[in-house]
């Protein structure tokens, strides 16, 4: 889309080019043509300016023919040749620039329902914009805080980690096969025999005796990393959860000791 001035200058450059062709030129440099366009534009504006000045000097508002003639004479243009020039043979007529039709405004998509003014806003003020322009809606999902879901997620994660570790071990270490033929579907991590197999049992090492205790103290620590918000709650509920949590096995009590005395004594 050209601006009005640019479109007008385009027409003027066509006029200048046609004038050059009439004069007998075949081609022109851009600089020269631009100079001619500039001169053409400034001479039109100057004639208009000068004519207006003469017309206003005479106390009129609309310029007459005489004002224009006077302006032309004052500019030093030879008015006597104008008629001859107008009646020359090969005059080129540039078509008038077409007026551009403004593009049809597309219908604005109505989104939502515009609320009416509150009571303290006068009715003549503009209506509210579409609600989507100012209403704030959260764009992220609310994090899951349900205990069961979190536990399930953590269990899945733990299982995945174990599975991945197993797979990794089978990749880098030797594997045994469960079946006679070598298979890669169900690999089993090969057991590495140490020379005296009982040596491990004999060697003293740092041992965690209270395995159960250690496990229970580890679990809240892992949870601490995952979501800190729930930490307090979890510690408080630890006892309760161990009971009504479906993912924890119930505590298996050791079978009641069979009293040897009872066996011994014949009933």
């Amino acid at each position, binding site marked *: 889309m050209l601006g*009005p001035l640019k479109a*007008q200058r385009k*027409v*003027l450059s066509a*006029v200048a080019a*046609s*004038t*050059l062709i*009439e*004069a007998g*030129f*075949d*081609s*022109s*440099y851009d*600089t*020269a*043509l*631009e*100079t*001619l366009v*500039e*001169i*053409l534009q*400034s*001479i*039109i*504006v*100057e*004639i*208009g*300016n*000068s*004519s*207006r000045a003469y017309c206003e*000097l005479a106390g009129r508002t*609309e*310029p007459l*023919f*005489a004002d*224009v003639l*006077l302006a032309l*004479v*004052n*500019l*030093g*243009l*030879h*008015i006597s*040749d*104008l*008629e001859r*020039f*107008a009646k020359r043979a090969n*005059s*080129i*007529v*540039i078509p*008038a*620039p077409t007026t551009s039709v403004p593009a049809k405004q597309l219908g604005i998509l109505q989104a939502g329902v515009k609320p009416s003014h509150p009571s303290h806003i006068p009715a003549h003020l503009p209506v509210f914009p579409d609600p989507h322009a100012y209403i704030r809606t959260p764009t992220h999902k609310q994090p899951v805080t349900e205990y069961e879901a979190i536990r399930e997620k953590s269990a899945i994660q733990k299982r995945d980690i174990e599975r991945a570790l197993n797979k990794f071990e089978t990749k880098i270490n030797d594997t045994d096969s469960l079946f006679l033929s070598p298979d890669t579907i169900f690999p089993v991590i090969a057991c590495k025999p140490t020379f005296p197999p009982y040596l491990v049992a004999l060697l003293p090492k740092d041992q965690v005796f209270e395995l159960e205790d250690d496990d229970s103290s580890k679990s809240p620590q892992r949870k601490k990393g995952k979501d800190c918000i729930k930490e307090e709650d979890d510690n408080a509920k630890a006892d309760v959860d161990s009971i009504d949590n479906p993912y924890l096995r119930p505590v298996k009590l050791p079978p009641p000791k069979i009293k040897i005395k009872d066996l011994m004594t014949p009933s």
Partner: protein
Amino acid sequence: MSIPGTSANHANGQDTKPTITMSAGQMVSNQSSSIGGQQLIDFLPSLEDYTPTIPDAVTGSFLNSAGFASTDPRVVRLISLAAQKFLSDVANDALQHCKVRTSNQSSKSKSKDRTYTLTMDDLTPALAEHGITVRKPPYFV
């Protein structure tokens, strides 16, 4: 857009013709005193159905930018005609310069079908004759 170095000083007394001396009063009341004016007055009705090269809308728009608002299309057409006449004079002068320059320059390779190209070297002296000084722009951006 403006070309640096182009100064059009039309209003600076470029009237070198001594025969045309008239004022607005003379123009209106005593038209027969000037031959050119009388011719133009006779020519005026024929402007009614004359189409100048410059479209009326373009000329009218530039005139409006100068504060000139006329309802008479003949006046606008007269201005278009005068402006184009000026341009045509300049172009004719430039063509003469071009012919002289090329004939001096390449007299040995004189071909019959020579093409004329308007350059600033031709345009500058032609414009100088009409009182317009075109200086070479110091640099191009």
